[in-house]
């Protein structure tokens, strides 16, 4: 497989890899590094890639595993990265001012979720994966995915309401 061909295969889902990595690792730089690492790994075994019928699912799985490993080693090294630069693109300017606050809340709320719920919420509500795909990716059954998703959504709702009330009082 040539370089351009590889890029064409990777192009449709490289942003998804990045967004998943960013959801898990939070920091933009770390997510970029992780995505680059995954793409290089894919490139180094791109002969095998033609054998996989779903390269995207494979790459997502690699990203998930890579990020979880990263997190584990980071916790072991007792290193915590606090990060808060986020981008709100595609929001019209007048709504941006009122909305950006609540949007950054949600980002923070999602950071506080357990990793599994984080991933489920990311894959479902941001990337619109089907339950079966999420179940395959995370090695869960679909019922467990539904439960985790429901919990994650409810947690986000509750915390959002809480923050909203603080704001009013």
């Amino acid at each position, binding site marked *: 497989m040539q370089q351009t061909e590889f890029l064409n295969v990777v192009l449709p889902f490289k942003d998804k890899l990045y*967004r998943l990595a960013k959801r898990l690792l939070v920091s933009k730089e770390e997510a970029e590094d992780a995505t680059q690492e995954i793409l290089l790994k894919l490139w180094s075994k791109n002969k095998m890639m033609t054998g996989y019928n779903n390269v995207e699912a494979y790459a997502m799985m690699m990203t998930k595993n890579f990020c979880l490993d990263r997190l584990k080693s980071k916790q072991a090294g007792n290193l915590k990265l606090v990060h808060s630069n986020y981008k709100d693109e595609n929001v019209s300017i007048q709504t941006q001012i009122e*909305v950006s606050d609540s949007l950054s809340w949600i980002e923070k709320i999602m950071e506080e979720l357990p990793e599994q719920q984080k991933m489920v919420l990311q894959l479902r509500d941001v990337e619109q994966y089907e339950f079966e795909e999420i179940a395959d990716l995370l090695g869960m059954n679909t019922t467990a995915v539904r439960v985790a998703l429901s919990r994650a959504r409810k947690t986000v709702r509750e915390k959002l309401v809480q923050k909203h009330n603080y704001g009013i009082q």
Partner: protein
Amino acid sequence: MEFNNIEKLLERYFEATTTVAEEEMLRAYFTREDIPPHLKRHAPMFQYFSVAKEERFTKQVPLKPRNKSYIKWISVAAVSVLVFGIYFGRSYQEQREAEYAYQETKKALSLLATNLGKGTEKVAYLREFEETKQKIYNKN
């Protein structure tokens, strides 16, 4: 107008029983400006998901050209050819030398054999001489 519908969808959304298409409807609904106040608190969540999807990976990935590994393999092949060449070339030369030595030895041996033949001829004369001498002795 469709509040009831949206409310029902929302309820099912939080139970995680909505389909991808239904969730798409919810997202589309909450990007609108005219959301009734009691639903407005859900809006940021859906707006955030739409915004989050816009994030792009912009870093350039330095993909190394794969020719590099070809060069590696070519060098390996060249080295092996060289080693085999030296090995077989040397054994060929050894064989030639051995053949040459064999020919030389053969020549030397055949030379020896002819000279030995000449010697035995002479010895045959000597024997005849001895026999006659013996006859003469016996007569006396």
